[in-house]
């Protein structure tokens, strides 16, 4: 074999090495283009929520014990809407006992700068006079006259009711006063106040 022939063989060898390597590598890449897939994953379904909470953790906002005529107590409840679906809120109460007709109740809607059940810390009433009884007042009457069910509940607020949205909060100042009426002697009453949210 002459030197020129050997050089020629080496050149041929180099060409075949490079060509084979090129073919092997590109086959790996181009092979991927011959596969195809399609999927539709990650489909999810979730219902919205309606959730209303307050800050009483089962504590009582109002307490009158061994009360005399004119005795009064005031407490505030902060109510917060946590649901994802905008909802309207209604107010009513479950009331029992013979003292209820002799208790005057005023419910005022507003905000608290430093809410801490049931202290009414920094309470500011809404500026709107909803029922003609003063700014923010949504109910003024006897305890036994307060709506007793959702069907007869107060809309919140009574005029221009709007749906609550997630994170919305309102404070309610509840004030109760015992009337000067001898018929109230020895009587007692209990009340559970309800705020109920429902979406349309």
């Amino acid at each position, binding site marked *: 074999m002459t030197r020129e022939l050997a050089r020629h063989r080496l050149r041929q060898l180099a060409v075949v090495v490079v060509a084979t*390597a090129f073919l092997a590598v590109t086959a790996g890449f181009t092979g991927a283009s011959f596969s195809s897939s399609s999927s539709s994953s*990650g489909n999810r379904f979730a219902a919205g929520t309606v959730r209303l909470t*307050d*800050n009483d953790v089962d504590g009582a906002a109002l307490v009158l014990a061994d009360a005399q005529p004119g005795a009064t107590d005031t407490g505030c409840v902060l109510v917060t809407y*946590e649901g994802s679906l905008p909802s309207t809120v209604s107010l009513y109460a479950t009331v029992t006992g013979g003292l209820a007709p002799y208790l005057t109740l005023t419910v005022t809607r507003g905000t608290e700068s430093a809410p801490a*059940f049931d202290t009414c810390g920094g309470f500011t009433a809404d500026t709107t006079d909803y029922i003609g009884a003063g700014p923010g007042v949504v109910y003024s009457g006897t305890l036994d006259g307060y709506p007793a069910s959702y069907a007869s509940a107060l809309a919140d607020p009574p005029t221009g009711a709007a749906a609550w949205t997630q994170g919305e909060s309102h404070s309610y100042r509840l004030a109760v006063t015992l009337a000067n009426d001898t018929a109230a002697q020895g009587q007692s009453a209990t009340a559970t106040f309800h705020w109920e949210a429902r979406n349309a």
Partner: protein
Amino acid sequence: MLRVRWFAMGAVLGTGLTAVYVTVAGPVPVRGSAGAQVRVLAGPTGALDVLPAGVALSANDLRPGEAASGSLSVRNQTARTVALDVTAPVDASELDHGIVLTIEDDGEDGHDVAPLRETLRGLQEARRTGLVLAPGEIKSLTVITRLPEGAQDYQGVAIDVPLRLEAVPVDA
């Protein structure tokens, strides 16, 4: 005959070189793959004020071994001492076990405490954090989300994790 032998040698060498290259270089990295997008959301409850309300943490390109953190403060608005329970009611099947959520109490002494470290799956049920708040007390918390090394199926996943905080009275 000699030409065929040279061709065969070239093919064998070429294949060998390719095998060596592939072995040394390893798999070709996937280009354009996105990390997970994770947002942790928290809002006030009647018993607990949460600031800021809304997005407590946002990670746009979270990859295995990486973590992201955010801050929020919680205030006890009740008249009782309460423990803090946390739930994250989210269905993120791809990442139920892949994401670990940590809630740390920033602490007054500067030393962070880690009262809760749980996967999303674990947070489907309420978990007690170990945080206790007196009436009116405010605690600053750090929320951390971590995608552990070796996490799978995270690419392109975008989830919102609603953090539901609940106050549980612990005083008598």
